[in-house]
């Protein structure tokens, strides 16, 4: 069964992909404004899954990383769901120096705290700008939970299955990025629930109406 085509058409998928491309472009520009970094963007990828399969899917996507750090943030509006920003484990230390901090200073507790703070800040900017732009283009306004950071977990334990509702669907919007001046790669996944899909279909049609 092509799970995706049963729920959204290939044209809707293409529109969503283009909107995601615009939204993550905005997020990258916002981050580049705040810290001295250049984000190498890639073509975003959309996939529709059963929500119960999500933890397994997310694990398979980051399996090349031994240990990972995750920034997770929930958002609510007509468009609602969760965003997961996934980095390989050393990312926090690489990014700390971009904020003008010395990653080598202080004890291990303070390094962990600094890394956590940095990942939270980067996550907040990327997720907020991306989800915000996506919602704006689709005529919605979302609110966010505070970001939650998990540092240096294994991909197996990263995302527990019980965070997703069973028997619901999820659109996974995936984009891979690379911070050019630093050895940092990551993924951004946006997972939206079944409740948002009808709204999303209508909003995508409304968005394209201006181009008919």
């Amino acid at each position, binding site marked *: 069964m092509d799970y995706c085509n049963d729920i959204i058409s290939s*044209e809707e998928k*293409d*529109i969503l*992909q*283009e909107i995601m*491309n*615009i*939204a*993550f*472009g*905005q997020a*990258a*520009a916002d981050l*580049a404004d705040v810290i001295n970094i*250049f*984000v190498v*963007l*890639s*073509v975003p990828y959309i996939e529709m899954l059963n929500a119960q399969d999500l933890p397994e899917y997310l694990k398979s996507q980051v399996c090349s990383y031994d240990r990972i750090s995750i920034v997770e943030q929930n958002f609510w509006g007509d468009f609602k769901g969760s965003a997961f920003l996934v980095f390989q484990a050393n990312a926090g230390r690489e990014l700390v120096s971009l904020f003008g901090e010395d990653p080598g200073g202080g004890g291990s507790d303070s390094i962990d705290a600094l890394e956590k703070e940095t990942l939270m800040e980067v996550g907040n900017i990327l997720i907020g700008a991306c989800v915000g732009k996506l919602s704006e*283009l689709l005529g919605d306004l979302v609110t966010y939970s505070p970001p939650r950071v998990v540092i240096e977990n294994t991909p197996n334990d990263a995302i527990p299955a019980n965070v997703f509702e069973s028997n619901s669907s999820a659109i996974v919007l995936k984009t891979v990025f690379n911070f050019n001046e630093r050895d940092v790669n990551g993924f951004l996944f946006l997972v939206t629930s079944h409740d948002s899909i009808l709204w999303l279909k209508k909003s995508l049609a409304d968005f*394209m109406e201006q*181009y*008919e």
Partner: protein
Amino acid sequence: MIRTILLVDDSPISRRMMKSCIPKDRGYEIHEAGDGLAGFEAYKANQPDVTFMDLTMPVMDGSESTAKIREFDPNAVVIVCTADIQIKSITNVLDLGALMVMKKPPSKEAVEDALSKAAELIG
């Protein structure tokens, strides 16, 4: 005078959006390509007056394609239309000879303005 336009973008939806923003009453001949390499080939085959170029594309990205087109034809008019609005990306393609950079999603006004600037340059 602008007669032919080339749209280079990997997203068919994005090309559709661009096409709908191009004034229909001027009889432009429009060609399309789905990646930077195909865009370069289409440029050589059709010699368009104006090329609208995306940046983030598979096979060959828009920066490389712009560079190749400008190397092939130093008078080529390339207008970049992209979601990658980082200052460094914009500066890079302007240095490669792009006439200007438009932010996605395109609007009729922005496309009209870009075509006017291109027409002034072409004469």
